[in-house]
């Protein structure tokens, strides 16, 4: 398998990263799908009768794309960051630092694997939610675009966090104080139009808001801001993070003393 599919250093590293989460897919794919389903059960039960969004949209239907995107973002971050911190703490990162793998290949392998896992989780969540609500896909291309960009942004951020953190609790802090607030305060559970003006303003500085809003547009064809606007912000975030991460890797920050 390994031999037939992949030759160079990049391909092997990418494949290894895929296998790493796939071998424990119960924790890395099934568990996040279950978590998202629990959110859906609880929130839709509590709010379905009371909340309507964009005029006529039922709350459960509104919630699904947000939950899918949240799962994508969190799992992308989790995949690259936990893989790197584990390799660093156990010391086996040395085995990918010794071979002739460029820093670009290194980056691509970790981020692409993060995207693959996040999309698998996303598809899993979508599949499960079909039991709760009928889904429609107004603009599938936008759905895919935002899923990939979101996975790429958080996969990159995971690489940065995994390289920066020396210990697991530093990584947990990164997750709790940056990733969680960014994703929760981004309109996963509500349309930001329902927020007070101040918080609406704040949300507009959160790049994750645009990823979720654009992703949701792909389903309903309605959103808080225009999908092109969201695309521009999301894509710009991706570029900035990719540049930052590649710069870390090129300098060997914390990896090559």
């Amino acid at each position: 398998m390994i031999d037939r599919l992949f030759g160079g250093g990049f391909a092997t590293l990418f494949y290894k990263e895929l296998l790493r989460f796939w071998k424990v897919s119960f924790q890395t794919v099934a568990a996040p799908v279950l978590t998202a389903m629990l959110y859906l059960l609880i929130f839709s039960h509590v709010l379905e009768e009371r909340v309507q969004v964009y005029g006529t949209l039922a709350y459960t239907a509104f919630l699904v794309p947000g939950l899918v995107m949240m799962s994508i973002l969190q799992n992308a971050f989790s995949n690259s960051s936990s893989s790197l911190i584990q390799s660093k703490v156990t010391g086996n990162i040395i085995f990918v630092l010794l071979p002739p793998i460029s820093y670009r290949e290194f980056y691509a392998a970790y981020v692409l694997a993060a995207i693959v896992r996040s999309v698998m989780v996303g598809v899993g969540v979508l599949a499960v939610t079909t039991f709760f609500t009928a889904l429609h896909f107004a603009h599938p291309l936008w759905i895919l675009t935002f899923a990939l960009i979101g996975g790429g942004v958080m996969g990159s951020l995971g690489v940065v966090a995994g390289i920066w953190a020396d210990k697991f609790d530093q990584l947990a802090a990164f997750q709790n104080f940056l990733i969680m607030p960014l994703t929760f305060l981004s309109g996963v559970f509500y349309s930001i139009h329902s927020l007070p003006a101040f918080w609406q303003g704040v949300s507009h500085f959160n790049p994750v808001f645009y990823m979720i809003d654009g992703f949701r547009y792909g389903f309903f064809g309605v959103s808080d801001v225009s999908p092109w606007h969201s695309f521009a912000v999301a894509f710009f975030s991706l570029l900035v993070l990719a540049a930052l991460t590649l710069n870390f890797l090129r300098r060997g920050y914390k990896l090559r003393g």
Partner: protein
Amino acid sequence: MTPAIRIHQVAKRYGALQALAGIDLEVVQGEFFGLLGPNGAGKTTLISSLAGLVRPDSGSLEVMGFDVQRDYRDARQNLGVVPQEIVFDPFFSVRETLKFQSGYFGIRNNDAWIDEILANLDLTAKANANMRALSGGMKRRVMVAQALVHRPPVIVLDEPTAGVDVELRQTLWAFIRRLNQDGHTIVLTTHYLEEAESLCSRIAMLKAGRVVALDSTANLLKTQASHALRFRLAEGDVLPPDLQAKATQSGGLWVLPFVDYSEIGVLVDALSAAGCKLMDLEIGKPDLEDVFLDVMRERAA
């Protein structure tokens, strides 16, 4: 011929600590080279610099003529490193580990070579065992195997036998010797000086980030330490002053160095002429341990 390893003026500082203080070293292709020095001398830092794991503050390093920074792909393709610390990926089996390592070096279909390495390191029976299930010695063997998957012409082993059983040491050295005979250049660091003495044709000794001795093993044994007469004196006997100046004594045991066996007669005659009765007379051969201690003491002074 291009040197297997060329190290030019390499310096590395960690805060206030000068880990490497301007190292110059060349290792010839096909050599079995020993890198010795006490803990903290900078051996691992030097090896890490060669492997691109550490970036020196100044100086340059080449593997088979390839600069480890500028031509890092070729340099790394030509280098196999067995790291000092035992590390492994608990997700994978021995064979998977070796297949991945081959893949990182861009090698597909490496099974025949992997099987050969496994056989030579007595790992065949463990090929499908998970890395977690292996003993420390077994993990060390896998690390040696990992360093060899891409058949590197230059192989560097950083204390490969530290804390490892006698059996592995012998298996390992037989294999490494054969690789050396097949033309691979070997660089070795070890704390077992007798190991270095019997394996290495040339040796560099490091202390506090400097090369303090560099010569063939034979020359080091010849020049640095000498043979010695060891003996005790009977009650009341004293050495004649000219011999006393050459000799050292601790706990009643005298050590009188000499260079050539022809001197033995002269020394013994001089002692008996002075009326000394010798007890427990032994002739000590120099070994690398003496050389090492000599060199390290000298540089401390």
